[in-house]
């Protein structure tokens, strides 16, 4: 035995990295993405993202269906932010048709989208609480989120899938009775949101798990093209509601919420403050709803579209969402290209897990607010390699040591 050892001319040191799959079943939120984490002890040395578990071929399908059928298809790219998807697509159609919706419709669209932002932010903040092990808070927040879902049902006719936006306006109007109901709901929700906001700011558990975790510098945000609350939490004031001033955002007063810290806590607090702003926008709209028609007669809309193309953006709850629609004339679009904010935010932040504890990975992932069904239209295979070069056990087995 000793003789054999002395004959050896090479010592192979096996680096003890453990490969841990985070997902694809419930990695942090209930969304199918696999983040493969390589850990040395408790610390992440490399992370890779694998997507494609939810690819549905929406863009191709959109070419096969008519312009109007695609409104409902685009609304189903993502369940949580269906109104923004539909709004973005419909505004592209309106550009092609050279049509402008009436002011009342613009306000109602904005109202539906802000209600959507409210419930989306509430969901991800509740999930953040759940991930750090604060399940009571999760249950409480989800209970109060139901109030906003009710508001959305009153406005659009369904609590989740709104199917609310149509070329030339919206699909149902508000009467004074509904406006009163909505105002009551907003009054009920506001103190709850403020209360949860305080819980996030002051609770010891949440502070220990979220402060100084997953910090992104403004330079990292801009170089990796991150969007939405993730960017705003690092002090990058990007908000297409402001830059683009689509629908009623040109007339409704609101502010861009930013923070400097750039950690998970900052991302949560940015969302809380945005909810506050959204509540103010909703209230403004309910008080200043312009008179006039809002619902177009869908039987009179043109079936055939002229040749043309349009590129539109909206600020989805997760960041800037863009649609490119190309028409070559006829009843079907020639091309519908969708770029969702989650696509940037999730894939491009993978290198930033390095150096964190394994237990922080779900918390960081949740703070980026992943929406996988949103982003699963392109399969990305190659990702940036980890920073430190290590030979894994698997490569060693393959004889690559």
């Amino acid at each position, binding site marked *: 035995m000793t003789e054999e050892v002395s004959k050896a001319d090479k010592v192979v040191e096996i680096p003890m990295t453990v490969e841990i799959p985070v997902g694809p079943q419930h990695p942090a939120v209930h969304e199918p993405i696999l983040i493969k984490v390589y850990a040395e002890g408790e610390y992440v040395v490399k992370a890779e993202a694998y997507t494609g578990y939810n690819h549905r071929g929406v863009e191709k399908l959109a070419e096969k269906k008519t312009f109007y059928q695609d409104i409902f298809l685009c609304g189903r790219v993502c369940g949580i932010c269906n109104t923004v998807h539909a709004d973005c697509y419909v505004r592209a159609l309106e550009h092609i048709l050279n049509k402008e919706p009436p002011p009342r419709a613009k306000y109602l669209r904005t109202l539906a989208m802000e209600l959507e932002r409210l419930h989306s932010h509430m969901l991800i903040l509740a999930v953040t609480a759940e991930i750090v092990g604060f399940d*009571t808070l999760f249950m409480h927040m989800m209970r109060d989120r139901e109030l906003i879902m009710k508001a959305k049902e009153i406005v659009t006719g369904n609590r989740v899938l709104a199917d609310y936006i149509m070329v030339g306006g919206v699909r149902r109007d508000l009467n004074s009775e509904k406006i009163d109901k909505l105002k009551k709901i907003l009054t009920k929700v506001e103190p709850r949101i403020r209360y949860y906001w305080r819980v996030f700011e002051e609770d010891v558990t949440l502070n220990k798990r979220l402060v100084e975790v997953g910090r992104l510098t403004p330079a990292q945000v801009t170089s990796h093209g991150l969007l939405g609350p993730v960017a705003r939490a690092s002090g990058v004031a990007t908000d297409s509601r402001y830059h683009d001033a689509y629908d009623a955002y040109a007339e409704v007063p609101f502010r861009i919420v930013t923070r400097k810290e750039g950690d998970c806590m900052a991302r949560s607090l940015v969302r809380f403050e945005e909810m506050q702003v959204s509540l103010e926008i909703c209230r403004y709209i309910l008080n200043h709803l312009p008179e006039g028609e809002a619902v177009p007669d869908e039987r009179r809309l043109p079936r055939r579209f002229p040749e043309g193309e349009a590129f539109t953006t909206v600020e989805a709850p997760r960041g800037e969402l863009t649609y490119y629609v190309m028409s070559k004339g006829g009843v079907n679009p020639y091309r519908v290209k969708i770029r969702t904010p989650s696509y940037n935010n999730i894939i491009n932040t993978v290198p930033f897990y390095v150096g964190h504890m394994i237990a922080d990975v779900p918390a960081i992932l949740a703070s980026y607010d992943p929406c996988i069904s949103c982003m699963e239209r392109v399969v990305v295979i190659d990702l940036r390699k980890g920073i430190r070069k290590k030979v894994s056990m698997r490569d060693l087995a393959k004889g690559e040591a």
Partner: protein
Amino acid sequence: MAKVPLLKDVLKLIFSKPATIQYPREETPVEPDARGRQYADLSKCIGCSLCMIECPPKAIRMEKIPEGYEVPKRNARKIYPVVDYFKCIYCYRCVTVCPTKAYVVTNEYRLASDAPVNSRELSLSTLKKASQEPSQGEGEG
């Protein structure tokens, strides 16, 4: 760091009514104009098939109105739309494109079943049975 009185909230909730709705024993409250099951009123339908053409998930099939029903003269082809409620996404596009506003809308959302559910019987119930024909008029489909 100040403590947030979450405990007070928790205690209050222990003694209050649960927020969870015990569906199906308890009904979920929905708005009266929420989008639920819809079916064509055949006394208004003219059998133009526009709803079938426009339906995004192709949930509508046009079928022949079975023998034994008094079909309005306007419906020359004697066809009517049958909505497959399992395929339907309740977008109400059919409701809004119908030239005669033939669709009857409800807020019925409880459609779970192990047998296929469609609008056939509901739609046919809007038509009068022809008096000279005593048969039950079960359709060929």
